[in-house]
C-alpha cells in the first residue's frame, strides 16, 4: 500500500515539477500561456521565454536529477556504503577541473567549450577509475583511489581559482559553475546532455537484479551466478558516465545523488529493480523543484546551494540515525 502510494506520488510529482518549471519564473505566465507558448502561439516574448529559455532548462534539470540519483543508487549498492555519492570516484571533480581550465584559459566564451571540457575532464577521471577497475582493484582500493583522485583534481581546480583570484569576473564565473546551476541553458546543452543520459539510464535500468546481488557482497553475487567483474565494470562506466554528463551541463550539483536513493529506499525497500526507476523520477522531480526555488527565492541562490540546503540537514539526520 505504502509502495503504491509512493509510486503514485512520484508519477504525479515529476510532471507537476516539470510544469512548475515551465510556468514559474521572473515573468509570470499562466498554464494557458505556457501551453500556447509551447505551440508557438501568443505573446512572442512568452514564446521565447517558454520555448527557448525554460524548456531547455527544465529538460536538462530533469535529466541531471535523474542521472545523479541513478548514479547515487549504483554507488551506494556497489560500495555497500550508505554515504556513497556520484562524485565519490572523482568524476565531478574531473568535470570541474575541465570546465575551470577552459574558463581560466579564456576560451570559455564559446557555447560548447565549457560543457565539452567538463566532459573531457570527467572522462579522464572515468578512465583512471576504469583502469583501476580493470586491474581488479577491490572495492576498498577503488574507494581509496577515488578519494585520492578527488583530492588531486580538486587541488588542480583550487590552483586555477587561486591564480585567477584577481580577475573578479572570471572568479565569479568559476565559483558559479562550481555551485551548479541551470540558468541560461541552451539547445546545445540539451544536445550534449540529454540523449546520452537517456541512453545510459536505459542501459542501467535492466541491471536492478545484478545490483541487488552485488549489494549482498561480491562473493555472494558470484555464487548466485553473476559475472561480477563484467557487471562491476558496466556499473562503474554507466554510473560515472551519468555523473560526467550531468556535471558537464549543470556544474557541480551535490546531495541529489545521496538523498534521493535513501529517501526512496526508506519507503520502497532495498529492491533495486524498483529503486532505480523510482530514484530517477525522484531525482528529476527534486532537481526541478530546487531549480524553481532558485528562481523564486530572493538572493540569487544557486542550484547546488539549494540542494545542499535540503540535503545537508538530511545527511546529518542520516549520520545520527546510522550512528
Amino acid at each position, binding site marked *: 500500500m505504502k509502495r503504491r502510494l509512493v509510486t503514485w506520488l512520484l508519477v504525479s510529482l515529476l510532471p507537476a515539477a516539470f510544469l512548475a518549471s515551465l510556468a514559474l*519564473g*521572473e*515573468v509570470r505566465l499562466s498554464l494557458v500561456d505556457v501551453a500556447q507558448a509551447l505551440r508557438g502561439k501568443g505573446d512572442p*516574448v512568452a514564446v*521565447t*521565454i517558454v520555448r*527557448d*529559455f*525554460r524548456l531547455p532548462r527544465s529538460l536538462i534539470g530533469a535529466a541531471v536529477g535523474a542521472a545523479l540519483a541513478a548514479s547515487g543508487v549504483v554507488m551506494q549498492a556497489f560500495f555497500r556504503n550508505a554515504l556513497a555519492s556520484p562524485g565519490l570516484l572523482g568524476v565531478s571533480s574531473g568535470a570541474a577541473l575541465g570546465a575551470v581550465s577552459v574558463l581560466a584559459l579564456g576560451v*570559455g*566564451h*564559446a*557555447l560548447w*567549450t*565549457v560543457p565539452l571540457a567538463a566532459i573531457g575532464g570527467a572522462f579522464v577521471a572515468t578512465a583512471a577509475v576504469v583502469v583501476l577497475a580493470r586491474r581488479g582493484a577491490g572495492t576498498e582500493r577503488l574507494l581509496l583511489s577515488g578519494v585520492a583522485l578527488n583530492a588531486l583534481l580538486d587541488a588542480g581546480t583550487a590552483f586555477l581559482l587561486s591564480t585567477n*583570484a*584577481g*580577475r*573578479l*569576473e*572570471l572568479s565569479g*564565473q568559476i565559483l558559479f559553475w562550481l555551485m551548479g546551476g541551470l*540558468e*541560461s*541553458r*541552451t539547445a*546545445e*546543452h540539451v544536445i550534449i546532455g540529454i540523449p546520452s543520459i537517456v541512453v545510459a539510464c536505459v542501459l542501467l535500468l535492466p541491471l536492478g537484479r545484478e545490483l541487488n546481488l552485488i549489494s549482498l557482497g561480491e562473493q555472494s553475487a558470484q555464487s548466485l551466478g553473476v559475472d561480477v567483474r563484467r557487471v562491476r565494470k558496466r556499473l562503474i562506466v554507466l554510473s560515472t558516465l551519468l555523473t560526467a554528463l550531468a556535471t558537464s551541463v549543470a556544474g557541480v550539483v551535490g546531495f541529489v545523488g545521496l538523498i534521493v536513493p535513501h529517501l526512496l529506499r526508506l519507503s520502497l525497500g532495498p529492491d533495486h529493480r524498483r529503486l532505480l526507476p523510482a530514484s530517477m523520477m525522484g531525482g528529476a522531480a527534486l532537481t526541478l523543484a530546487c531549480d524553481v526555488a532558485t528562481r523564486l527565492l530572493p538572493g*540569487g541562490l544557486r542550484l547546488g546551494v539549494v540542494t545542499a540546503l535540503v540535503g545537508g540537514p538530511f545527511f546529518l539526520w542520516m549520520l545520527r540515525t546510522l550512528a
Partner: protein
Amino acid sequence: MTVPLPHVCRASLLAWTFLFCALAAAPAAPSPAQRVVSQTVGTDELLLDLADPAQIAALSHLGREPAFSQEASEAAAYPMLKSIDAESVMRFRPDLVLVASYTEAPTLALLRRAGVKLIVVERFESLEDVYANIRTIGAALGHTDRAEALVLRTKQRVAELARKLEGVKPVRVLAVSTYPFTAGLHTTFQDLCDHAGALNVAGEAGLVGHASTPDEKLLTWNPELLIASDTEGSDLEARLRQVPAYRHLPALEAGRLVLLPGPLMASVTHHRVEAFEALARKLHPERFR
C-alpha cells in the same frame, strides 16, 4: 514611331537608373533603439548620460548601489534587473541589450536567438576604450551628437588636468585592500595613475592585471603612498596594519593612505576622469591652488 536614343543619352539614362536603384537598395541607417536594457554598471552610466529617459527599459541589478555606481541616485528612477540571466532581461522586451565581454556565453546566445540586438563592451582599460564605447552606444541610441559632446568634454578635462600636472614628479603609489590584491599593468588603476601624476609601483615591477600582493617583493617596491577605496570602511588603516604584506611598509607606518570613492576607483566610464582629478588633487595639491 519610336525615336532611337543616341548612345550617350542611353548610357546616361542607364547610369541614372543604376544610381537610383543603388540608392533605393542601400541599407538605411539603423533606427535608434527604443527599449534598452543594460546589464552592467558601466553601461548603466553610459546609458543614463546618452539616452532619452524613455529609451531606458531597465538597468543592471547593481546600478542603484552607491558602492558601485557613480550614478546610483539617477538609476533609482528606472526599473532594475533582478538577476543576470536571459529571462530577467527579456521581461523588459528590449530591442537592445548592453552587456560586457564577461557575460556568460549561454546568456548571450539565448538573447541573440531571441532576436535582440546586443552591444558587447569588450574593452574598458583605457580612455580610448571609453571613448569608443561612448560612440558605439551613442550611435545605437541615435544620439551621436551627445556621444561626441561627452567625448569632447571628457577630453577637455583630461587635457586640462595634463596641463596642470605638467612636469610634476610622479608619486610612487600602490593600490591596497584588506583583500591582499593589488593592481598592475592593464588595469583601470594603472590608467588612473598614468593620468593623475602617480607611478604605480606594481606596474613598474611588471605585475599584470589584478594579482595577489607579493609580501616580500613589496618591501623593495618602496611605495610613497597607499591608495584604497573608501568602501573598505573608515578603520581601513588599522585593519591594513594587521595584513602582514602591508604592516612593514614605511608608507603605512607614516599613515600615508589616500581613500578614493569606490565607484570612481573602479569606474570603466568617462567618470574615471573625476577619479584622475581627485587623486591628482591629493598627490599634487600645489598645482590646484
